[in-house]
Structures are given as C-alpha cells and as structure tokens.
C-alpha cells in the first residue's frame, strides 16, 4: 500500500532527524526527558477533575463548566482525559480516533509539518503523539469556541502532542487552547505539532494562552494551510514565567485572497527566553496579512520575529512589532523580515523597542495615580493593543489574563 510506504519513508526521515537542531532557539537535550503517561484516567466532564486541576484550566482560559463552549478537549501529559463536542457541525476527538475513523486523514496527517524539520518534530513523530482533532463541517458557523487544554502533569516529562484542525468550506470556527502546568511540576517539556487546514471561504480564529511555569521548555511547531478566500486569525498570549519558548507558526497562504492575522502579546520575566515568530507565505494572488506583536521584557529576553514572503501579485502585508523593556536586565530583539518575489505587491513593517514613555506615566501621575499604578495601566494598554479585533468573548479571556498579570512590580 502506498500509504504504508509513505509512512515508512517518513519514519526513516524522522529517525535521521533525531539529533537535528532546530533552526531557532537554544538546544534542548531530549535524552533528559521521559515520555508522558498515556493512561491517565478519563473524565466525562471537566467538573469531575480535581479542584486544583480545574483552577489550572481556568487560568489558561479553559472553563471547567464548559459553559459557552462548543466542545472541550483535555490532554494531560500524553493521555486524552476528555474529549467532547456539544453542538452539531463540529467534531472533537483524539487524532488517534480520527485516524481510525476517517481514511482521508492520511491527506492531513503530517502533511503540513515535516517530521524531519528538527529533533522535536522527529520525536513527536516517533512517539506517534496524540492530540486534538477538531473539524468544522462544511458551512457550519460554530458560534461558541471549542476549548482545549494541554497540561503537563509529570516531572521530567517531554509531552508530545499532535493536533489537527480542519475547517471545511465556508465554515467558521473558534478554538481556544490553554497550555498549562500542574502545580509542583518543575522541569518538563512540551512539544506540540499543530496542522491546521482552512478550506475555501472558511475562517479559523485560534487563540492560544500559554500558562507554563518557570522551568518549562516549549517547542510548538505549527503550520496553517489556507485555501481561497480563507481567514486565519492567530492570537498568542504568554504572560506567565517560563524557561524557554521557541515558536514560529507559519501560514501557507496558498489560495487566492486569503487573509491572516497574527496577534502576539507576551512578557519575558527574569529567567524566561521567548523566541516568538510568525511567518506568512503568500503565494495566492490578492492575499493579505497583518502581524502585530506587543512584548515586554521584565528581566527576560524576547526575540520577536516576523517574516512575510510575497510570491504573488496584489499581495499586501503589514508587520508591527513593539517591545518594552521594564527594569534592568531585559532584552528585546526585533527581527522583522519582508521578502518580495514579484513586483506587484506591498509589504511594510515597523518595529520599535525601548522603555515606557515617561510623559505617559507622568500624565497619569498628574491625575493622582502612583507611578506603579500609572505604569500598570500603560502596560495593560500596550498589551491590549496586541489583541484588538478579537471577538468579544475571546477578548474577555485575554483581558482577564492581562488583569491577573502583576504589572505593578515591574
């Protein structure tokens, strides 16, 4: 069978890439991590989870009562603990189940992300990682978001995850993913492969809230494939301390008149290194992309990358990346890149890094606010701009995360 031969070939490539360093980010020795448990107990509903686990979910924007959600999926270490869909028009199940259920899954499984991209994709491939499969059926306008949570439970675990989202023609889907660490887990690693397919005229609004802890390493690998007239909105929020994140989601905008927007807001606390990129490859005529990044370094390091590649006429793009350094020891590196391969396109960027504007702080102080309060308000406003244009329900989640962030002591 061709499929089996293909799989063997991929496996060979993955084996060969076992030691392959990633293009960006500090290297991580995978031998120092064990696989996550695959047999944790399942629950019927998220309210059955321990109170502490529910709290962890909530902090990452995942609602235990599942109110106002179209479906839920929870992965702990490498066990699918819960998976459910509450409305017609959207399917939520483990990828392993979708592979059994649908023969056509071969067209999507490891088709956007290469197993041999680096050691992290290779490990995820050889582990045959599970993850969420979410599919909006053709024409389905899924009003409430599907929520997913990827939680690290065990010490020293390298959690491998493989997610696939398919938004069929004309469908609309919101997905909120909260990534978090269970209390007491010090050192662990999250490797997450995500392959998103957005069909003709479809929309995917994807929000990811990263809520890891001080010693966690994170290496997501995400590729989005867009067909004609499709829309992809990516909202990325990382406000909590973490050891290292390196991510570079890439939208392959293959269809005509595609639109994509990447909003990122992040804080690099002391000891955190965030290497955050967004890439759009616009090979379909008339496609557009916007990238907005708002990052703060409060002692940690931020590398904000953005790359737009224009390969077709009438492509337009704008990249805006702003970084604040609050206090001593923080580092901000902004690397915007524009590549044009045809004459009839327009792509622009603006990048700015530096300290918070003193005149703004004093303006608020002149209204009776303390300096800390003034800085807090300006910083929240700064981050807020990074998530503008989101649907209200999603924005509320992120606003809450920003509210919870202690910006006074920065």
């Amino acid at each position: 069978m061709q499929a089996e031969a293909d799989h063997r070939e991929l496996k060979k490539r993955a084996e060969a890439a076992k030691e392959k360093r990633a293009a960006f980010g500090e290297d991580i020795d995978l031998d120092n991590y064990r696989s996550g448990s695959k047999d944790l107990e399942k629950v019927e509903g998220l309210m059955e989870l321990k109170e502490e686990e529910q709290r962890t979910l909530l902090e990452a924007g995942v609602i235990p009562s599942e109110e106002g959600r179209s479906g839920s999926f929870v992965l702990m270490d490498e066990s699918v603990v819960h998976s459910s869909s509450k409305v017609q028009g959207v399917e939520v199940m483990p990828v392993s189940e979708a592979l059994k259920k649908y023969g056509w899954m071969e067209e999507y499984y490891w088709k956007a992300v290469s197993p041999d991209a680096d050691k992290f994709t290779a490990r995820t491939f050889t582990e045959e990682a599970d993850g969420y499969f979410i599919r909006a059926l053709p024409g389905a306008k899924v009003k409430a978001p599907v929520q997913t949570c990827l939680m690290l439970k065990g010490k020293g675990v390298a959690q491998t995850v493989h997610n696939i989202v398919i938004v069929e023609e004309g469908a609309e889907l919101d997905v909120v993913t909260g990534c978090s660490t269970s209390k007491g887990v010090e050192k662990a690693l999250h490797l997450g492969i995500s392959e998103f397919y957005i069909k003709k005229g479809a929309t995917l609004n994807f929000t990811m809230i990263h809520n890891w802890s001080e010693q966690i390493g994170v290496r997501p690998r995400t590729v989005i494939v867009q067909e004609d007239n499709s829309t992809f909105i990516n909202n990325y929020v990382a406000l909590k301390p973490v050891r290292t994140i390196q991510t570079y989601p890439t939208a392959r905008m293959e269809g005509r008149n595609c639109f994509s927007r990447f909003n990122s807001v992040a804080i690099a606390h002391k000891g955190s290194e965030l290497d955050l990129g967004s890439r759009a490859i616009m090979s379909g005529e008339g496609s557009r992309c916007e990238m907005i990044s708002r990052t703060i370094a409060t002692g940690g390091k931020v590398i904000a990358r953005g790359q737009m590649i224009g390969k077709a006429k009438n492509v337009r793009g704008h990249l805006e990346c702003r970084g604040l350094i609050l206090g001593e020891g923080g580092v901000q590196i902004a690397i915007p890149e524009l590549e044009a391969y045809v004459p009839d396109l327009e792509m622009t960027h603006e990048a700015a890094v530096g300290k918070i504007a003193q005149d703004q702080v004093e303006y608020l102080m002149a209204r009776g606010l303390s300096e800390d309060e003034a800085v807090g308000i300006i910083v929240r406003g700064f981050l807020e701009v990074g998530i503008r244009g989101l649907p209200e329900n999603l924005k509320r989640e992120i606003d809450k995360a920003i509210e919870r962030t202690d910006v006074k002591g920065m």
Partner: protein
Amino acid sequence: MLEIENLHVEVGGRKILKGVNLNVMSGYTNVLFGPNGSGKSTLLMTIMGFSGYKVTHGKIIFNGEDITNLSVTERANRGIGIMMQRPPNLVGVNLRNMIKVTGKNRIVPEEAAVDLDMARFLDRDVNVGFSGGEIKRSELIQLEAQNPCLYLLDEPESGVDLVSIERVGNKVRELLHGASCAGRKGNIGKAALVITHTGQILDYIEADRGYVMCNGMVMCSGNPRELLQEISKMGYEECIKCKLKLTTVN
C-alpha cells in the same frame, strides 16, 4: 494657595524661566498672558512637577508647603490638576477607563461625558486622533473626575469650535465654583491659573488678576480685561515698559 518665588527653570539645558514671582490666592482665578515662547506653559508644567522642567532656583509653595521637590503624584494628591496643551497619546487606554481611575470610581463616565458631548469618545484611546478641541474637552472631564483645588489650565479655549466653547467655558466655571475639592478637608474656594491668548475664556469665568509673561519673567500684572485690551492694542512690546511700571508699583 499658590506662591511662586523667584522661580528659575531650565528645559533641556536652556533657561526658560528666569525668576518668576506670582501667587494665586484661594478663591481666585488668575490669568497668564504672553507671547509664544514666553514660558507660560513651562510655568504650569513646572508647578505640576513634570520631569524635564528643572528648577535651578526658587520655590513653589502650595498651601504653605514647599512642594518644589515633590513628585507629580504627590502634587496631584495635594490638590493640583492640569489641563495640558499637548497631552501624550495613551494607546490602549480608553477615556472611560481614564475617567474611572482618575475619579477613583466616584463619577460615572457616561454622566460626566454628557455636558461636554464626549459620550462617543469614551471607548476611544485617550488623545489618539483627538482634535485640539476634543483634547480640551477630554482634559476637562478628567479634571472633573480628579476634582483638584488648583486648576492649571493651558489655553482651555484653543482649538475649540464656536459651539463647544460655550460648553467648555461653562464647565470650567462650574468646576471652579464647586464647593470642595480633593486633597482638602472642608470647604475652601478653588483657584485657577489660566493661560489664554484670545481671552475668550474670560467671557465664562470671572478672572481676578492677570499676569503678562515675557522672556521667562512676569512683566506686569493687573486687571485681566484691561491687560488684554492693552495687549490687543499695543502688542507685547509694551511688556518692558510694563515691567518698569510694576517695579515702581512694588
């Protein structure tokens, strides 16, 4: 309420104020005239305590206390409020939130916005894309929320259209006549130091005393309406003569 004694101020290494003396008594509204660049705005910004305005000599006394070295917040909390000429843009902070935090939730933004016709600006980022007149109205709402004892108003009428000028003027009058103010216990009269070029604001507020500034100094003082008349007739060149007159009077 406010006494400025021989105030010398540098901005970016340049001497801007060169020995300013003036005072504003409780219940009084005093007006500052003077040509562009004479140091009027610098004086207000220095009273508020903004960085970049370096006091090299002299004192600022507020209600008997030397506030020359206090922070902006401390001055605001003692009852000083300012309407700036060019306030900075606060991207990501909307006017509603600004009113709430300024007023410590004492006033309802929607209600405060009615008088100044600013309801549609409540969800906008403070000052971002505001016209000159809109900035004035936004500053006034914030001042209403803040409720200071001493108002430092930098050209409250400039850029304000003919219809809005009445709203702005009436609001300024209303604020100045309010009984109590933040930072003080009990009823005391409020006071104001107002910069004006056109004098239009004088149609709405009763000004008690006028000062003319030239080249970083107060050149003369007197009845504000008379001073305004004199300036519009003779220009600011009369400042020097005026200074001589002031010296002889004092």
